[in-house]
C-alpha cells in the first residue's frame, strides 16, 4: 500500500487522511455558526462560490475538547456531492504510506476505534488512518 496520506494531528494524536480524497487544505478565517446542529458541526465557511460544512474532527470522534490550532487548518473533502472542511489541530505534509493498513491488537481506544480504519506506518512513525465518512457522521451518540 503506497497511498498518499495527509498527515495531521487530531485531538493531539498523529492521524492521516487519505490524500486522494482531499481537494485542498485551507485556513479557515470565518465560520458562520448554524444553530441547532450538533456540536461537531462548527458551521459553514465559504470557499469561492461554495459553502463548506466545517466539521471539527476531534468532536466528531467523540472527544470533549474541540480542535485547537491558531491557524485553523482544514482538509476539504467531498462526500455525496457535499463539500466538508475537516478541521484538525494541524495539517502537515503529504507523505507516503510505508505499510499496509493493520489492525492493532486491543483496538485503537475510544473514539479512534470507530472512525479509525487502522494503523499505517509512515516515515514519521505509525499513524491512525481515519475514515472520513465516519467522521462526517459524527460521534456515536448522534450517529445512533
Amino acid at each position: 500500500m503506497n497511498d498518499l496520506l495527509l498527515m495531521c494531528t487530531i485531538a493531539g494524536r498523529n492521524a492521516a487522511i487519505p490524500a486522494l480524497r482531499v481537494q485542498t487544505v485551507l485556513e479557515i478565517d470565518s465560520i458562520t455558526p448554524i444553530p441547532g446542529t450538533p456540536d461537531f458541526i462548527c458551521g459553514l465557511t465559504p470557499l469561492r462560490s461554495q459553502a463548506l460544512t466545517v466539521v471539527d474532527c476531534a468532536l466528531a470522534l467523540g472527544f470533549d475538547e474541540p480542535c485547537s490550532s491558531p491557524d485553523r487548518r482544514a482538509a476539504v473533502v467531498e462526500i455525496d456531492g457535499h463539500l466538508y472542511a475537516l478541521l484538525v489541530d494541524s495539517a502537515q505534509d503529504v507523505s507516503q504510506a510505508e505499510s499496509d493498513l493493520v489492525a492493532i491488537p486491543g483496538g485503537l481506544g475510544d473514539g479512534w476505534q470507530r472512525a479509525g480504519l487502522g494503523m499505517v506506518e509512515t516515515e514519521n512513525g505509525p499513524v491512525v488512518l481515519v475514515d472520513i465518512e465516519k467522521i462526517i457522521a459524527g460521534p456515536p451518540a448522534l450517529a445512533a
Partner: protein
Amino acid sequence: MDELLAEFIAETREMLEQSGTELVAWEADPSDRARIDTIFRFVHTVKGNCGFFDFPLLEKLSHAAEDALAECRAGRREADPALVTAVLAIIDRIGNLADLIEAGEELVEDQNDAALIAALEADAAIEVQSDVTPVAPAADEEDGAAPVAAKRNAVQRSIRLPVDLLDEVMKGVSDMVLARNDLARRLREAGEQPTIDGPFERLSAILADVRTSITRMRMQRLEHLFTSLPRLVRDLSSELGKQVMVDFEGGEVELDREMIEMIRDPLTHIIRNAIDHGVETPAERLKKGKREIGLLRFAARQSGNQISLIITDDGGGIDTGRLSQKAVAAGIYSQAEIDSMSQAQKHQLIFEPGLSTADEVSAVSGRGVGMDVVRANLERVGGSITVSSKPGEGTSFHLHLPLTLSIIATLTVSSGGQNYAIPRNYIEEIVFGSANSVEFAQAGARRLITFRGRRVPCLSLADVLGTEDNERCEWETKTLVLVRLASDDVFALAVDRVHDHEDVVVKPIAPAIMQTKLYAGTTLLDDGTPMMLIDLPSIAQMRGLVGEMRSKPALVEETSDKQVKTAVPLMLFAGLDGRRRAVRLELVRRIDTVSSEAFDIDGTRAQAVINGRILPLAGLEHGSLPEGRCRLLRLSDGESEVVYAVSEVLDAAEMTGDLVVSGDDPTIEGVTLIEGKPVPLIDGHTLFFHYATPRPIAHPLTCRIPRDNDWARTILEPLVEAAGYRIAAEGDDEADLAIHMAGDVVDAGQARETIRLRPDPEDAGDGSIYRYDREGLLAELKRVRTGRAA
C-alpha cells in the same frame, strides 16, 4: 414539434458521423458482418424515425437500403463493392436530406433518388453504379449544393452539450460574481477612481448578462415533458377501459431542467388519478350527456418568476361527500370540523395523507401513495398545489412552480446576531411586536398572539434554533413575521429584525445539517458569507403547528369572514348633522374639498360646481352647509355623478353584520352594525333616482347670444359658459337656448328656449330678466338646463 425535429436531425447527424468510419472500413472489406450490422442499424433507425415525421422520401431511401442490407445479413446476398457504393450513395443522400429538412426546405423526390434505389438491386448494380453515383453528387453541386451548403452553415444553430459542462460554467460564473463583489468592495474602500470605475462598471454589466444567459441555458421547454404524456395517457386509459384525449397549451414555457425532472413524478401521479378517478367510462359519459372521449388539458403559463401549470379533466369531479366520510372514518377530522368546512376546503382534503376516493385499489392508483406525497414533493421544490372541482364537470389541479430550483425569493431576518433567509412565498404579513394591534398571551407553554382578531401560535426563531430561551425573550421588542403555510396553517415567527428582500441562489446543505430539520439550504451573500435558509414547513411540523385542531377552526371563521368582508366595503362618514352614515365604497369616485362659493342652492335644487362641472348636491337634508370649505363625496352610478356633502370623512369599513332593512326611510338601504354601532347605509338607488343627470360636460347645451353686442360678449358670455353652456358658433343651426336683448330684432336661428334680457331693472312684465340680475339669470339658465336634463 420543432424541437423533436431538431432532435431527429441532430441524432441523424450524430449517427452519420459515427458511421463514417464504419463505412470506410466496410468499403475495404464488403463482407465484414460487424460493419454491415452497424450500418443496418443506422438506416433502420432513420427509417423508424422517418415514419414518425412523415418524410416519405427519406423513408423510401432508408427502407431500400435496409432491405438490401437485410438480405446480406440473412446470407441471401453477397455484399459486393457495387452494393457498398449504392448504400454509401444513399447514406450521403440521407445526410443531404437532413440538411434540407433543417433548412426548412421541401423534400422533392428527384430521379436520382429512384436511381439510387435501383442501384441497390443486385443485377442492376453495375450499370447504375457507373452513371448514378458520379452524376448525383455532380448534379447537386452544380445547381443545388452551394446555396444549400450556405444555408446549412446559417442554420447550424444548435449543438449538444453535456449538462455537467453547463453546471460547471454556471459555477464559474457564480465565482466570478463573488470575485466581482469582492473587488467592488475594495474599490469602494479605495475611494473614487474614475479610470478604474468605468471599466469595472462595464465588467459588472457584462457579467450580469452572462449570468442571465447561463441561467437560460439551463432552461428547457415544457414541451419536453409534454411529449411523454400522450403515451402515458394512452396506456393508462386503455388499461382502465377509458378513452382520454390530451390537449396541451403553453409548451413553449421554459423551466429549469431540474425542475422539469422534479415535477415529472407528481404530474404522472395527477394524470393517473385523473384517469382512474376523474374521467368516467365511455358508457357513463354517454349517459351523462358528455362526449364519449374524456379530455385532459394541460395549460402552462409563466407569470413573473413563477410557472403555473393547470391540469384539468372533464370527469366526474371530486366526491366531497365520500371524501369527508373517509376523513372522518380515518380520524383525521371530526364530523363537526367537516361540517364547518367550505366546499373548497373539502376539496383540499384529497391532499390529506391516507385518503383516497377510490373504494378499490386499482392497479393504477390508490396504492397508498397519495396526493399528499405529490404535494410534499412539490412543496419541497418551492411549489404549491391546489385543487378545484365541480361535481359532474371535472377537476383542476393548479400547480405553481418557481422558475428554477435554485433561485428563491426570500426575506432576510436576523436572530441572535445572525442573518437568515425565509422563503417569501410563505410570508403573509410583518408586524412589530410593539404595535398596539398585537397582543401576546400564553397558553401553557405556548405563546400566542392576537392580531386582527385572530389568535395564532407564535414561535421565536431564537428559541426554535436554540440560541435563546423563550423565558428570556422580550416579545415586545421582536418583529413578527406571519407565516401562512401551503396547508393554510398560520403562525407567527418572532425575529429580532427584518432586513430586506433578496433573491438568493440556494445551495444544498450537508445531510448532518439537514437532520436538524431547521434549514432548507444555504446561500452565499454578496460578500461571500453563508446564510441559512429556514425551512418553515418543517419547523411548523416539528412544533406541531400543522394540521392542528387549534388552527383549523380559527381558519374556517376567518375565511367565512373574508367572504362577507370582501362583499361589501363601505365608506364611513359623518353627515352634515354629525351623524355617522355609510355609503357603498364602490359608489365613491373621489373625495373633493370645495369652498362654499362652489355651491348653488336654490329652493329644493342644490348644485355644486366642481372643476367646471355642475353636479347635483345631496346630503343637505341632514343640515346646512358649513362656512368656508366643505367636504364632498363624489358618487357615481357609472353615468351620472352626484356630490354628497358631509362634515367629515371617517374611514373605510367593511360590512360584516346583517343589513337591517328599514321600510320607513327610502333614502337608506338599511342599518348595519359597524364596530358595534348602528350605521345607516345610504341607498344609492334612491339617491341617483332623485339626482341623476346626464353628465353635463359631455353634452353641454348650446346657447346663442347676440354676436354684435359688446355687453353680451364680454359680460354675458362668461356667465353663460360658467353655468355649463357652450356658446353656439356662427354655423350652428339649432341652439338649446337663445338669449336676446330686449328690443333687438329676433335672430333667425332656431332655439328651443329663449331668455330675454332687458336693460332696465324695472319689470317690464314681458317675462324678460334685468341684465344684471345675476341670480335670476343663473336660475333661468339652470331651469333651462335641468329642464332639458329632465
